[in-house]
């Protein structure tokens, strides 16, 4: 039995929003400062901070301070939990579709 490190609800709540998914994709490619993250969006810094808080709460990202900058990077463990769940969900459907295939072949 797989033990998830973190509860899934915060993870999928965080992933429900397209801006947050976009931020996460960008951070996955490398560490970014909060201002770098905010740059492409037509949104206040406060709104971006709110998105980052939710991603952090879901443990999909982590923040660290470097001088005056706050740097954001991906939290591998939270993302691994989300991937793990998606993988299991996918396997469940693969098995169900195998079962449908057998049913169609025998009826």
């Amino acid at each position, binding site marked *: *039995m*797989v033990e*998830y490190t973190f*509860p*899934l*609800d*915060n*993870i*999928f*709540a965080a*992933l*429900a929003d397209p801006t947050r*998914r976009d931020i*996460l*994709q960008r951070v996955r490619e490398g560490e970014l400062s909060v201002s770098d993250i905010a740059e492409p969006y037509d949104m206040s810094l406060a709104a971006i901070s709110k998105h980052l808080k939710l991603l952090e709460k879901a443990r999909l990202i982590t923040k660290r301070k470097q001088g005056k900058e706050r740097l954001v990077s991906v939290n591998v463990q939270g993302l691994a939990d*989300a991937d*793990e*769940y*998606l993988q*299991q*969900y*996918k*396997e*469940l*459907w*693969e*098995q*169900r*579709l195998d*079962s*449908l*295939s*057998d*049913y*169609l*072949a025998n*009826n």
Partner: protein
Amino acid sequence: MDPIKEVKFEREFEAPIQKVWQAWTDPEQLKKWWGPNDVTIPECEVDLKVGGKIRIVMEASEAMGEYAGTRWPMEATFTAVEEPTKLAYEAKAWTEGMEATTTIETVQELTLTEENGKTKLYLTAAIHKAGPDAGMAVQGMQYGYAQQFDKLAEYLK
């Protein structure tokens, strides 16, 4: 396509499109393939129209060991019904008695196309919400399938 929260499937069946459509929409047929062998389907209702509901309850039998007696309901509302090519629905699934913590909400879309008597199936499922313990239901059902394939492997030996 959003790989973080969506899964996609593509399959080809050696069956005409109408047969695949029927297997997916007729409750009596759904009961025969939807769940693993050691899972019974005590409830299966399909009201096949936009706005209509589909409800399937899976129940783990004695053979499911630690999961015996567990019930996993799934309820969905059809958002598209275009016989025999397209079916879309918004679904909710959970472990009975633990609805608050195990519910998963998905949007699923099924597309069928036929060529030379074979049917191609495309399925996407996007996960919109998951309860903190949503992983449990998936694991329980997988346990059932794992046993089923063990049995098949045993049989094929």
